[in-house]
């Protein structure tokens, strides 16, 4: 099983993500303007911010579900358009209730009219730890199992960029930690941009954290922002440096003047 995962990791080159001249609007209201950021190839980046700040809108724009507003450019690290290289995972598992777990995993191929690879799908279900649930319908599964199947479906897409919109926020704390670890392992070598409102989750998983707070955007690590602790992800939740970073980021989030100074 380890062999297959290495093979898949090697089957594509990691690509980066670059947003230039960004503008986010909700109707007439401009949420965020003149922002740019890069996501390094093969890295895990978290977008952090309060609800309603436009995190999901930004992610959906990058996913190609919303037309970019005004001058916004969304490119890979070489300046090419992203099309068809992005997989999307939402907060809800979005499993189709009439399909079994394995059929849900193979949904993408079916929708594109491609041949479905049942063995590969089974293998991915095994890697996400729900092999024995392959023929179960979503209604028969627990929330954790369903999100594991959703993760398997995301992996099955074989896209070098994975966008995640709070994929673990509806889970209980223990299941959430397990799924975070699993996602980090299985999505290694892929470029991940994950939206979250949980600073601790961001610090535990991310190589880079970006804080969305209208009308500007902060990179963690800028002069007034705490930096992401060193070490490989997923970081140990009991690690004191992680706790310190968490405390610092909470202070920064609660204190509006920090942003003012950065501008």
């Amino acid at each position, binding site marked *: 099983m380890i062999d297959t995962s290495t093979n898949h990791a090697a089957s594509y080159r990691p690509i980066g993500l670059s947003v230039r001249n960004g503008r986010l609007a909700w109707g007439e209201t401009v949420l965020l303007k003149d922002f740019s950021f890069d996501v390094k190839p093969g890295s895990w980046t978290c977008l952090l911010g309060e609800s309603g700040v436009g995190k999901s809108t930004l992610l959906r724009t990058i996913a190609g579900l919303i037309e970019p507003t005004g001058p916004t450019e969304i490119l890979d690290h070489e300046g090419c358009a992203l099309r068809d290289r992005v997989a999307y995972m939402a907060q809800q598992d979005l499993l*189709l209730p009439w399909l079994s777990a394995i059929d849900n995993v193979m*949904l993408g191929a079916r*929708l594109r009219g491609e041949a479905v690879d049942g063995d590969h799908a089974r293998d991915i279900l095994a890697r996400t730890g729900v092999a024995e649930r392959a023929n179960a319908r979503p*209604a028969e599964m627990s929330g954790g199992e369903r999100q594991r199947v959703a993760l398997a479906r995301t992996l099955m897409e074989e896209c070098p960029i994975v966008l995640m919109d709070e994929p673990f926020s509806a889970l209980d704390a223990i299941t959430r930690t397990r799924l975070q670890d699993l996602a980090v392992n299985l999505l290694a070598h892929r470029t991940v941009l994950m939206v979250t409102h949980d600073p601790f989750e961001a610090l535990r998983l991310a190589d880079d954290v970006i804080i969305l707070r209208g009308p500007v955007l902060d990179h963690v690590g800028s002069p007034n922002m705490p930096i992401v602790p060193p070490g490989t992800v997923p970081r140990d939740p009991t690690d004191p440096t992680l706790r310190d970073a968490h405390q610092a980021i909470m202070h920064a989030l609660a204190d509006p003047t920090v942003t003012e100074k950065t501008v």
Partner: protein
Amino acid sequence: MSFLRPIIVLGGLLAIWQTAVSAFEIAPFILPGPLSVISVAFERTDIIARHALVTLSEILLGLLFGTLFGSASALVMAYFRGARAWVLPVLVVSQAVPVFALAPVLVLWFGYGMAPKVAMATLIIYFPVTAAFYDGLRRTEVGWIDLARTMGASKAAILYHIRLPAALPAFSSGLRVAAAVAPIGAVVGEWVGSSAGLGYYMLLMNGRVQTAAMFAALFVLALMAVAIYFVIDRILRRLIDWQNELDPAVHD
């Protein structure tokens, strides 16, 4: 027990009916007892079966056409924004004009045969099917469609793999209503003008004061309506077995 319950209820009602007829000495041309109705039904099995077959065909054809037209209209409305403005008035008018008032016109146009009855049944079915299916198509979970779009799915693939199956529960409630009202269309058509069918036979027997035969035809009609509903319900349940899993209240 759940199987016996309707039989007990039905048997009880028949017993009360028979007792009432005997006790109050009701004239048989006003209300015949269930025993005489049953005996007439057995005496005239052939003739009643022949008329029943006509009515059954009308109902089934009406269901078929009504479902086809209804589904087509719902799809057109769901997929073509411009078309909605054109189809919606037709839908509303098809309901605003009482089907009963249309019956004589339909008989005038299509003659005394099966065609006007099928048209009546189709008209009566068209609205519940269209309305329910359209509603189902419109309410597809947005997240599913988003997911499919990020997977590079075409509009047709999204329709076939996601929106159609997602709309099936709504469609099936429309079809259940349709199955229940379809016999009305057929029988009203037969009353207005025909030479065959259970509706025709009932009118004929009414005119000849053969009330027991009328009741026999009525029972066959009711039995047929229940059977059609039951069969359609079974098919739909099998087709969308996943819906029962979603509803925790349904656990037989």
